[in-house]
């Protein structure tokens, strides 16, 4: 059974879905951030797959940028988690809902 585009994409899809589930369901903000990393990774996998399928390097360049963004996001995101924890002694997403009317 030859491994093709569909296989890689399927793996990417599953990992992405798992990531989404993590973001939507977990209460620990650190796990939520990790789930986001999973989703980004899934997207990266899809990009590389497409790049491979189309023969263009552009897809991989995008992955490079995604990684940059991911790094920045984690840096800032964790910083926010840090001060949020300092202020409220919790990492529970449910309790961080002051940003509303």
């Amino acid at each position, binding site marked *: 059974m030859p491994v093709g585009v*569909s296989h*890689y994409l399927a793996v990417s899809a599953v990992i992405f879905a798992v990531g989404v*589930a993590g973001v939507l369901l977990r209460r620990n903000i650190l796990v939520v951030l*990790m789930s986001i990393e999973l989703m980004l990774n899934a997207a990266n996998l899809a990009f590389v797959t497409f*790049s491979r399928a189309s023969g263009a390097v552009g897809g991989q360049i995008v992955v490079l940028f995604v990684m940059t963004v991911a790094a920045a996001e984690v840096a800032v995101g964790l910083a926010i988690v840090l001060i949020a924890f300092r202020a409220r002694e919790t990492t529970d997403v449910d309790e961080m809902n002051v940003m509303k009317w």
Partner: protein
Amino acid sequence: MTALLFFVCSLVAIASAALVVSRKNPVHSVLFLIVCLLSVALLFLLLGAQFIAALQVIVYAGAIVVLFVFVLMLLNVKKETVTLHSSTVQKLGAVILVIVLLMEALFVAVMGVGWLSKEAWIAASGISFGTVQSIGRELFTRYLFQFEVASVLLLVAIVGAIAITKKR
């Protein structure tokens, strides 16, 4: 051989991803995240993207996950008593949505998309694909500006992270 490797790697990746999400202890989650990232790196290699694979290991598994670990240790959070979200609507909705999303994505993956074909896959499997050289050439010619922007973004992120966490 390649097929076998693919199946093993992808199964490990999926399984570890699921574990990242499902472990109660965030420290465990981080460890499984490393596993997942490494197996995805292997998948990259299988696709012939050596440079990306290397980056995946260095940046993700190296830098990002270490960051997570640091923060975890810094915060010293106890295990969650309740893992899942409190609202039933949110839980139910999330489950349904995830399933629907997965279905859709799999549908795309399996049924394919118009512009992809087997021929393209084979033709593109040249030697130079995904080497440091080929990516580097593209990156410093065509995507130079974007590259610079990315570097600025990182700088801003560093400054931002420091500024946010600074104690007043």
